[in-house]
């Protein structure tokens, strides 16, 4: 009888940066760092999640995030399955709940979900027994992006505590900005959000950041984090900015707006010539490729951390140098 069994430990998910405390963020970053050595080996696969199943359920087009999660699961020897909304039963009107229940029949250990609607990962977490990772839900959260960004910053600058980060662009519609600002606050970094007044929502300062509409606010930052500017924001009825031309003139990251010593990040895909000048994107200061590489190890760390309960953790299977304390 079920009542005779000890209660199952609560399933852990990564739906929002709010699910984490500082020590958990640091643990994930340290695990990711210990996994980097595996990237340089000839045989890159680790046996850690052998026999485990990771399902990627993607309702929005995505190249880098899906590829990153797929490879992360494969590098840990998990069986992976990726489903996209197009060409699947979703096309036939199946609800998210029913799709999740169908997938749950395969007993996946982890379901990674990207969905255009805020709250979708919570639905999957409610109706399945899998650990759920939010790979982006609408304008809400993209927690693994924030973690890989912290990882990249820590590797590039050497610290997170006291780090000063300026996030520039369409803050209003950006799940990347929301997750990143919360994560930065968690590790004691300082952040300022910069963009046109129509795209910087009032109230966001409650997350522990500053708001500015003046591009000069990036001058003192150690890291300039550039967000993608989407063409839809200029559509009739939206009209958040009058033109890309004026946006680029006011907020585009050009070489003269970057000072020596600053690093530049972008979650991709970049609109060269719009939010970021090609000369900046291709410069030494740009960490865009480092971010992609960080994405792989951070997502490996997240999968590993969720599947193996902290109390009963198996050895990672890689030799690691002691991680640096942030």
């Amino acid at each position: 009888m079920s009542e005779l069994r000890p209660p199952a430990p609560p399933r852990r998910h990564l739906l929002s940066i709010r699910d984490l405390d500082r020590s958990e963020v640091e643990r994930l970053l340290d695990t990711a760092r210990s996994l980097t050595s595996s990237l340089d080996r000839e045989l890159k696969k680790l046996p850690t999640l052998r026999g485990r199943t990771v399902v990627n359920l993607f309702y929005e087009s995505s190249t880098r995030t899906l590829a990153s999660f797929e490879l992360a699961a494969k590098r840990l020897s998990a069986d992976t399955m990726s489903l996209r909304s197009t060409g699947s039963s979703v096309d036939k009107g199946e609800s998210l709940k029913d799709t999740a229940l169908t997938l749950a029949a395969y007993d996946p250990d982890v379901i990674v979900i990207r969905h255009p609607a805020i709250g979708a990962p919570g639905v999957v977490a409610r109706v399945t027994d899998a650990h759920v990772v939010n790979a982006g839900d609408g304008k809400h959260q993209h927690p693994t992006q924030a973690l890989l960004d912290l990882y990249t910053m820590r590797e590039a600058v050497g610290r997170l505590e006291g780090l000063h980060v300026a996030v520039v662009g369409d803050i209003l519609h950006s799940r990347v900005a929301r997750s990143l600002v919360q994560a930065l606050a968690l590790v004691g970094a300082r952040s300022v959000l910069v963009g046109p007044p129509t795209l910087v929502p009032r109230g966001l300062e409650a997350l522990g950041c500053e708001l500015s509409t003046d591009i000069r606010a990036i001058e003192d930052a150690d890291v300039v984090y550039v967000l993608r500017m989407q063409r839809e924001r200029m559509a009739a009825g939206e009209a958040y900015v009058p033109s890309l031309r004026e946006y680029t003139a006011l907020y585009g990251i050009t070489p003269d707006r970057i000072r020596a010593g600053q690093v530049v990040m972008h979650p991709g895909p970049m609109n060269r010539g719009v939010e970021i000048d090609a000369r900046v994107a291709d410069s030494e200061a740009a960490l865009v490729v480092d971010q992609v590489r960080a994405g792989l190890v951070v997502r490996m760390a997240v999968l590993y951390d969720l599947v193996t309960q902290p109390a009963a953790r198996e050895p990672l299977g890689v030799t690691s140098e002691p991680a640096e304390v942030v």
Partner: protein
Amino acid sequence: MLVCANGRGDDLVVEGRVLDPALGIDAALRVTVTNGVVSAIEPGSASEGILIAPAFVDPHVHLRTPGREDEETIRSGTEAAAAGGYCAILAMPNTEPVVDSASVLGALVERAREEALVPTGFLAAISRGQRGEELTEMVELASEGAAAFTDDGRPVVSAALVRRALQYSALTDLRLALHCEEPALSRNGHAHEGVVSAELGLGAYPSLAESLMVERDLALADLERRPIHLLHLSARESVEALDRALAAGAAATAEVTPHHLVLTDDAVRSLDPNVKMNPPLRAALDRETLRDALRRGAVSCIATDHAPHAPEEKDVPFEEAPFGVTGLETAFSALYTHLVLPGALALETLLERMSTGPARAFGLAEPRIEVGARANLVVLDLDAEWTVTEGGFRSRSTNSWLLGETLHGRVVQTVADGRVVFSG
């Protein structure tokens, strides 16, 4: 006009603390009902926790009939009303089809005569199909028994049409009940514009989207010297506009829902579709302003805006979920628990705003506990505790914001139009 499946009046005796704020009664009494009429009120004895009061009136219920009988029927909705202590409810016309013609209304009234456990009135639409373009045949609708006119569920966007409706409805003695929302400002809005919407990335529905239309509609009503009723106020600015109009002599009434009185947008952090309503839950200051307006009487009605939704409609991501929550079966207990017990609202005021206030706003008979009156009373056990569960509803829908919560105070008996319609 209220209709129900008519039965003969019942005989019963109830005894305990009787509280009728409108009549100024607060004493231990024994009330005898004979053939559905209060025949004697005599000194009696109080029993622990038992309170007898005029039954409740809900001016804002979505019965989903015709069209969505899977979510609610006249029968299930009025059973829910009976369980909530109501002796009269008013149903909104945003059904499929919309109640915009005498034939649709007539069919509903007929159905209510067969099915309604509790006397039910039906509002008719202001505009055909609630499209906000042409007026409905208001005089014919009034003669068929419409309780008032509203396009609730959506605003009347055109100020000119509101003005025409105010002018034309003067041919009836019915008022307009207005859903105040400036759609250009609320477009894609899923939560109150504030810290929570900014943090979660939810589309913002600012207070001003409501209060601008409140200001507009009060000005139009003043211009035409017509009374109006403001539906489900949520924002501080709306209450301030109402206060100014009332001070200038406006004949306006207004309602507030239990969820806006109890919750704030902080609840939205859960991303639970059962805290998604239109208008949205707002900030703590808005909630305090609504409570104050209710205490003062500027807002004289508590309305549930009972909005049943099928589980498959609410078992979706927050952003995709429809607006609306149920409320008939939990209104008294929720407000007793969250407002009366903590001392934010007097019990007498709660009872008055759930009964006399709404009845008066819509010209319905005011439930009274007096000899010679049809019995419309509710027996409450203030000491009872109960937990809200999906299995406990009479309503066909379970989209309650209170699921899992333990509440104090419970309806134990409801007498509506002389008949015992609920015994718990």
